C-alpha cells in the first residue's frame, strides 16, 4: 500500500474533478456517494499505509520516501559559501511519523466532516460545488502534509488557501461572504510572500529544498552559514505561518471566515488548514533549533495571540465567532509549544484540538440547523432537553478544550504549559500567559454552553416551533468526535501520570538530533502542582460562567455596564480591523484610485490625444484640399475666362455688328492694296 501512497491525495482529487466537471447534472445522492466515499477510501488507505509504516523499522526511524516525478531538474550550482547545491525539486511524497499523524488527522477528521456535510448541506443550492471544493481542499491539504520538499508543500499551501477562499465565499451572492473570502486570501497572500522569501533564502543557503537534505545539513556539525541567515529564514517562514495559522498580526481573516458554511469552519478553520503553519514549523524544527531568536519570536507571538484572542472571545455573541477566536487562541498554544522547543507537545495539541474543535464547530452547526439559522447566542437558551445529542457532544468538547481530565485537551494543554514553564527555552512569563488563557478558555467555552443550552429560553416564537434534532448523518460524526475527544489524549499520557508516552516516542525520530538543551531542574512536585493549578483554574472558569449565565444572568449585564469601555473594546476586537483599514487597506485603495486616475487621465488621455491629432490632420488635409488644390483648378478656369474675353465680346449676336466687322475687313484690305 505504501507504494501507492500517492493515491491518498488522488482519491479526493478525482472526486473534485467529477464534481466540478459533471456535478451539476448528478443527483445529490450520487454526489454524496462519490464525494464522501472517496475521502473515506483515502482514510482507509492512510490507515493501511500507517500500519505498514509501523512495521518498517524499529523506532520509526526510517523515512519512507516516494519521489514521483522530477519537476525542476535544476541541477548542480555553486553556493556563496563555496559548496555545491543540487536543486532537483521533485513531485514526491514522504512518510515519517510527523506526516503520519497529520495524514491520519486530515483524512479521518476530514472524512467525518464530509459525512456531516451530507446532512447539513442537504437543502442548500450548489451541493455539488460544495463537495467539489471540499474534495479539492482535501487534495491540497494532503499534498501539503505528504510533500517531501518545501516547494511541493507550498503548492499544497497555496491550494488550501484557494479552497479556503472558494469555500468561505461559498454563498457568494452575500456581500459579506465574498468580502470575507477576499480578505482571507489577501491576508494569506501576505504571509505567503514571506514564506516564499524564506524558501528562496533556503535555496541560496542550502542549495536544496528537500526536507531530508535540509534537516541533515542543519544538524551536521560542518554547517557554515552566515550570521543571521538561519534566523532570517526561520522568521520569514514563521510569518508565512502567521498568515496561514491566524496568529498576530495576520489573524484578522479567521473570524470573518465564519461566513462560510459550518462544515467549512470545522474542517478548514479548525482542524486542518490552520494547522498547516504549525506543521510547517514542526517540519523545520532542525532550522528553528539553530536559532533561539526565532524560537523566542514564535513562542512570544504564540502566547500573545493566545491571550489576545481569548480575551476577545469572552464577549462575542455570535456562537461561531466565539469558536473562531478560540481557534486562534488554541493555535497560539501550539506555536507556544513549538517556540519553547516542545514540538511534540505542539503536534499533540494539534491532534486533540482537531478532535474537539471540529466537534465544537459541527455541534454548533447542529444548533444553528435546529434553530433554522440563528447564530446569536442572545437568542438561544434552554435547548438542552430539546436537542440532547447535540448538547452532550458539545459539552464533551467544551470539557475537553477547558482541560478537564481525563479528556484529550487536558493532556495536550498540560504538556504545553509544563514545557513552557520548565522546558529548554521556557520562561515563567510564557507559562503565566498560557495559564491565564486556560482560565479564560474554560470561562468563554462554558459561557457558550450555558447561554446556548441552559437558563431561560430566549428563542423567538416562530423559531421555537421548528426546533428539531439533526439527522443521523450529522449526529454520527458528532458522537465519533466526542469519543475521540474523550480517549484521544491517552496516547500521550505523560510519565508523571504513569503513562507510556507513546505519542512522544512515536514522534521522537523527527525531532531528535537537535542540539540538546536540558530541562530546567524542578522537582516532580512542581509538575503535579502546576497540573493541579491548571485544573483548579479551569473549574474556577466554569464556575464563574455558571454563576454569570445560569444563576444570576443579570450579573453579566451589570458587569458590562460597569466596565463599558473595556467591554466595548473587546466586543469590537480591539478595533484591529479598523486600524488595519486605516493604515493599510485604505492606503492600498488610495493607490488604486491614483493609478486609476493616471490610467484615465494619462493613458486614456494619450489614446484620445492620438485620436484628436488624427482628426486634426484630417482637418488640415481638408483645408489644403479646399484652398490649395481646388484653388489651383479654379485659378486655371479664371485664367481661361480672362484670356477668352476678347474672343467673347465679339459675339454680340447682332447681325449688324458682324456686317460691320466684314466691312472693316474689306476696307482694311482696300487701304492695303491702294497704298501698295
Amino acid at each position, binding site marked *: 500500500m505504501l507504494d501507492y501512497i500517492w493515491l491518498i491525495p488522488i482519491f479526493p482529487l478525482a472526486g473534485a474533478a467529477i464534481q466540478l466537471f459533471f456535478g451539476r447534472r448528478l443527483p445529490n445522492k450520487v454526489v454524496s456517494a462519490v464525494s464522501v466515499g472517496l475521502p473515506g477510501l483515502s482514510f482507509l488507505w492512510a490507515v493501511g499505509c500507517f500500519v505498514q509504516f509501523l512495521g518498517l523499522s524499529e523506532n520509526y526511524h526510517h523515512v519512507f520516501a516516494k519521489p514521483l516525478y522530477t519537476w525542476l531538474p535544476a541541477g548542480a550550482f555553486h553556493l556563496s559559501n563555496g559548496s555545491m547545491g543540487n536543486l532537483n525539486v521533485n513531485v514526491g511524497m514522504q512518510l515519517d511519523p510527523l506526516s503520519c499523524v497529520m495524514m491520519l488527522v486530515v483524512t479521518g477528521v476530514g472524512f467525518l466532516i464530509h459525512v456531516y456535510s451530507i446532512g447539513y448541506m442537504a437543502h442548500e443550492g450548489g451541493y455539488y460545488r460544495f463537495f467539489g471544493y471540499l474534495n479539492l481542499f482535501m487534495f491540497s491539504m494532503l499534498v501539503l502534509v505528504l510533500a517531501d520538499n518545501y516547494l511541493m508543500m507550498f503548492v499544497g499551501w497555496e491550494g488550501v488557501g484557494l479552497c479556503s477562499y472558494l469555500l468561505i465565499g461559498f454563498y457568494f451572492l452575500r456581500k459579506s461572504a465574498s468580502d470575507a473570502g477576499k480578505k482571507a486570501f489577501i491576508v494569506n497572500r501576505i504571509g505567503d510572500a514571506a514564506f516564499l522569501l524564506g524558501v528562496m533564502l533556503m535555496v541560496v543557503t542550502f542549495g536544496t529544498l528537500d526536507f531530508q537534505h535540509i534537516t541533515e545539513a542543519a544538524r551536521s556539525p560542518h554547517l557554515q552559514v552566515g550570521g543571521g541567515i538561519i534566523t532570517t529564514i526561520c522568521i520569514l517562514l514563521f510569518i508565512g505561518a502567521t498568515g496561514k495559522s491566524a496568529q498576530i498580526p495576520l489573524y484578522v481573516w479567521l473570524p470573518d471566515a465564519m461566513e462560510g458554511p459550518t462544515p467549512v469552519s470545522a474542517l478548514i478553520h479548525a482542524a486542518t488548514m490552520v494547522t498547516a503553519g504549525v506543521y510547517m514549523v514542526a517540519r523545520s524544527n532542525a532550522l528553528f533549533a539553530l536559532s533561539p531568536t526565532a524560537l523566542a519570536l514564535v513562542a512570544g507571538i504564540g502566547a500573545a495571540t493566545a491571550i489576545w484572542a481569548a480575551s476577545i472571545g469572552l464577549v462575542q455573541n455570535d456562537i461561531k465567532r466565539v469558536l473562531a477566536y478560540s481557534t486562534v487562541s488554541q493555535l497560539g498554544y501550539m506555536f507556544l509549544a513549538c517556540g519553547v522547543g516542545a514540538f511534540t507537545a505542539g503536534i499533540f495539541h494539534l491532534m486533540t484540538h482537531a478532535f474537539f474543535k471540529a466537534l465544537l464547530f459541527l455541534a454548533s452547526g447542529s444548533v444553528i440547523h435546529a434553530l433554522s439559522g440563528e447564530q446569536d447566542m442572545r437568542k438561544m437558551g434552554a435547548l438542552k432537553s430539546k436537542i440532547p445529542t447535540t448538547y452532550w457532544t458539545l459539552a464533551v468538547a467544551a470539557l475537553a478544550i477547558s482541560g478537564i481530565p481525563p479528556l484529550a485537551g487536558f493532556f495536550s494543554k498540560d504538556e504545553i504549559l509544563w514545557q513552557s514553564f520548565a522546558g529548554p527555552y521556557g520562561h515563567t512569563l510564557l507559562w503565566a500567559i498560557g495559564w491565564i488563557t486556560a482560565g479564560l478558555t474554560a470561562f468563554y467555552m462554558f459561557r457558550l454552553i450555558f447561554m446556548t443550552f441552559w437558563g431561560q429560553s430566549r428563542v423567538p416564537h416562530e423559531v421555537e416551533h421548528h426546533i428539531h434534532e439533526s439527522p443521523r448523518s450529522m449526529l454520527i460524526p458528532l458522537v465519533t468526535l466526542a469519543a475521540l475527544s474523550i480517549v484521544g489524549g491517552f496516547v500521550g499520557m505523560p510519565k508523571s501520570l504513569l503513562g507510556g508516552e507513546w505519542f512522544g516516542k512515536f514522534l521522537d525520530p523527527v525531532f531528535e538530533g537537535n542540539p540538546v538543551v536540558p530541562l530546567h531542574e524542578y522537582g516532580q512536585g512542581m509538575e503535579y502542582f502546576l497540573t493541579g493549578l491548571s485544573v483548579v483554574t479551569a473549574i474556577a472558569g466554569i464556575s464563574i460562567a455558571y454563576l454569570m449565565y445560569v444563576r444570576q444572568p443579570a450579573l453579566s449585564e451589570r458587569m458590562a455596564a460597569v466596565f463599558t469601555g473595556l467591554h466595548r473594546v473587546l466586543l469590537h476586537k480591539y478595533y484591529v480591523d479598523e486600524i488595519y483599514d486605516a493604515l493599510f487597506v485604505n492606503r492600498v485603495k488610495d493607490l488604486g484610485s491614483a493609478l486609476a486616475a493616471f490610467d484615465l487621465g494619462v493613458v486614456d488621455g494619450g489614446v484620445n490625444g492620438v485620436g484628436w491629432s488624427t482628426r486634426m490632420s484630417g482637418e488640415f488635409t481638408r483645408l489644403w484640399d479646399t484652398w490649395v488644390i481646388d484653388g489651383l483648378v479654379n485659378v486655371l478656369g479664371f485664367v481661361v475666362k480672362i484670356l477668352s474675353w476678347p474672343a467673347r*465680346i465679339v459675339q454680340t449676336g*447682332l*447681325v449688324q455688328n458682324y*456686317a*460691320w466687322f466684314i466691312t472693316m475687313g474689306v476696307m482694311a484690305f482696300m487701304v492695303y492694296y491702294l497704298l501698295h
Partner: protein
Amino acid sequence: MIPTEYYLFLGTGLFTIGVIGVLTRRNVLIILMSIELILNAVNINLMTLSQYFKSVDGQVFAIFVITDAAAEAAVGLGLIIALFRNKETVNADEIDLLKW
C-alpha cells in the same frame, strides 16, 4: 456728254449710303431696302462701265444681279416673317440669341 466719273461717283455714293443703312438702321425691313440699294448701286456701276468699255457683258451681268436681288428679297422676307413669328419684333438689335 456726261463724264463717266459722275456715274461712278453716283454708284459709290449709293453704295456707301446702302452700307451705312445696313450697318446702322434698326428696322430689319429698312436693312433689306438698304441691301437693295447696294445691289442697285452695283447695277449702275455695271451699266456705266459697260458703256465705257463698249461691251455688252456688263449689261448681261446686271440682268443676273436683278434676278438675284429679287430672289434674295423673297428669301429675306421669308426669314423676317419666320423671325417675327418667334420673336414678335422687327428690331435688329433685339435679335441677339447668339450672344455669348
